[in-house]
């Protein structure tokens, strides 16, 4: 991007005409060397005990997860609380919740890249890593739910001795392709952005072991401008490809429900409603993670309050999209004049799971409204608390959609309550341990804020003469 001040018109006029960037995205004055040091510090230098204080509990929760997985695999899914009619229960609730969380990562890294939102730069790596780990957690649940997870490869079209092929008219098989593609593309996008930064780590590392290790993963990147040219184009293209992909993934997930005849599921509002909910919950989790991480890593000058405030505005906006989804869902349920739909939505408001329903309304619709106030948007404790409540609310929403709809379908004689067992609860909380373990390892071994992109942003703002930028280039690059 060229410096806008030099391309057209008097400088002051152009700067005033850009109301989207009124505040510097990097606080303080940095040159390239001090930025590199700031952003590689947590990976290359000695860390305090804060990291360990978070990592050990995460490992504990991971242990719980592995124990619950072992019970599920060796004894069977009968150890879960699932029954008929509630055959999906926690397993699919957790799957939908986790996969939705991943979506905000792609939104921040890909969609905001295409929209040229510069504030994404400081948080995109972080959000992409969250996507990857959330998709890993999500993928494990349907796998375990198979009952015989070692036969998972039956889902893929391969020439088997049984001479059968998958039934591609089933939405469940679409899921396999959607989630598989989503994971692959997210991984490639993340790694491509990472290559130049791994080269920076290789070059900034002081120990031989680190230099060799980061050198291997940097693939021999030497910062050639010929390579940067290809890199920029390829990165932008991946962003462009990930954007329709992210919309398609939760759409396909929602088809698992919408293509059935279960009252409460059989609705055309599901795809957009699921995608909005996915982005909403993912933004909330980014917030939940980034608040402690920026404290832990000491990079508050690069991940500023301005970034957090922008995120809060997006949370507020997506909260209204989700609210609109709830209203439409209930209105259409009533408008169908179908007594089974009426009964399901009536039960949702007043039945056995009504407390969960009202909790989700509180967390997803009411609580985010505090972000109308600038004070709440810029208060770190408030935004963290709100983000945690939204995570709870979104999990409850998935639970209500799945369990409440299933437990109350056409035949009253089939109605049956679902109660989670300790294995269900251990898998849910344990998967958070798996996520936290992966995430903390990421923070420790990989630069969580993109180094080259922040330096590029810093040099651009320097050229534009904005507040807080480093020394301008002598000949006005």
């Amino acid at each position, binding site marked *: *991007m*060229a410096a806008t001040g030099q391309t057209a018109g008097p400088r002051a006029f152009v700067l005033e005409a850009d109301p989207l960037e009124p505040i510097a995205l990097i606080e303080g004055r940095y*040159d*390239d*060397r001090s930025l*590199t040091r700031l952003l590689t510090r947590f990976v290359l230098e000695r860390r305090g005990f804060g990291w360990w204080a978070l990592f050990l509990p995460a490992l504990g929760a991971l242990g719980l997860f592995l124990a619950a997985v072992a019970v599920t695999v060796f004894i069977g899914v009968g150890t879960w609380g699932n029954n008929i009619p509630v055959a999906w229960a926690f397993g699919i609730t957790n799957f939908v919740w986790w996969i939705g969380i991943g979506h905000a990562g792609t939104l921040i890294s890909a969609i905001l890249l295409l929209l040229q939102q510069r504030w994404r730069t400081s948080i995109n790596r972080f959000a992409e890593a969250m996507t990857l780990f959330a998709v890993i957690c999500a993928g494990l649940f349907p796998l375990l739910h198979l009952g015989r997870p070692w036969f998972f490869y039956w889902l893929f*079209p391969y020439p088997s001795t049984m*001479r059968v*092929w998958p*039934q*591609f*008219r089933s939405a469940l098989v*679409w899921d396999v*392709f959607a989630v*598989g*593609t989503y994971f*692959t*593309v997210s991984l*490639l996008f993340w*790694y*491509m952005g990472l290559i*130049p930064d791994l*080269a*920076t780590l*290789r*070059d*900034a590392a002081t120990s031989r072991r680190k230099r060799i290790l980061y050198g*291997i993963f940097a*693939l*021999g990147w*030497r*910062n*050639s*401008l*010929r*390579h*940067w*040219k*290809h*890199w*920029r*184009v*390829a990165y932008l*293209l*991946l962003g462009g*490809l*990930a954007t*329709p*992909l992210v919309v*398609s993934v939760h759409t*396909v997930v929602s088809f698992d429900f919408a293509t059935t005849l279960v009252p409460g599921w059989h609705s055309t509002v599901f795809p957009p409603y699921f995608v909005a909910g996915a982005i909403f919950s993912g933004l909330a989790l980014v917030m939940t993670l980034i608040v402690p991480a920026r404290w832990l890593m000491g990079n508050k000058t690069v991940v500023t309050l301005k970034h957090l405030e922008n995120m809060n505005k997006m949370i507020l906006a997506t909260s209204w999209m989700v609210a609109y989804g709830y209203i439409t869902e209930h209105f259409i349920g009533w408008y169908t004049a179908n007594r089974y739909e009426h009964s399901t939505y009536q039960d949702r408001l007043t039945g056995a799971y009504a407390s969960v329903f009202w909790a989700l309304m509180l967390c997803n619709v009411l609580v985010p409204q505090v972000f109308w106030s600038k004070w709440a948007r810029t208060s770190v404790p408030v935004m963290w608390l709100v983000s945690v409540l939204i995570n709870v609310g979104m999990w409850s929403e998935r639970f209500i959609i799945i369990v409440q709809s299933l437990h109350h379908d056409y035949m009253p004689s089939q109605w049956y309550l679902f109660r989670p067992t300790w294995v269900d609860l251990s898998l849910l909380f344990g998967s958070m341990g798996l996520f936290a373990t992966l995430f903390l390892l990421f923070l420790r071994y990989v630069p969580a804020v993109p180094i*080259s992109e922040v*330096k*590029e942003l810093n*040099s651009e703002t320097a050229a534009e003469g904005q507040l807080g930028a480093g020394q301008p*280039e*002598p*000949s*006005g*690059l």
Partner: protein
Amino acid sequence: MATYVLAEFESGARMLAAARRVRDLRVGDLDGYSPYPIEGADEALGIARSKVPALVLVSGLTGALLGYLMLYWCNAVDYPINVGGRPLHSYPAFIPITFELGVLFASTASFVGLLAFCGLPRPHHPVFDVAKFRSASVDRFWLSVRTDDVGARSKIESVLADEKALDVAVLEDEA
């Protein structure tokens, strides 16, 4: 045997200014190195348009086409099952996987294409023999000229000195 002349610069603008002058000497292959992409590099170094987009387009279309053919062949030809009397070739139901496979092929092509066009992974390159070259990923801007013409070296070095290069190194490339 080729020779690399490497020069370190304080800023991208100086490096590109030197690149323009060295390029006019027409003595060898130029490359620039910087911690992040910089404006004006394409013109100064004579970098051509990237071929990654063409590769991505072709791969994406190939993936979608192969995906659709696979779906059709599996469900309508090799293993036809009657599901509620619906047509065996139910094309609306084939759209999601066709789309996903198109995106999968295109994305993989963009990654593989990037590496292929850059000649990576390449763990060692002559420029890494200069210890100070590590600053290229931190805060310095480097220019390299690969030349077979031994007599051109002094001309290049005088231009580099004239453009205020911080440091100049000369390497012999054995390869």
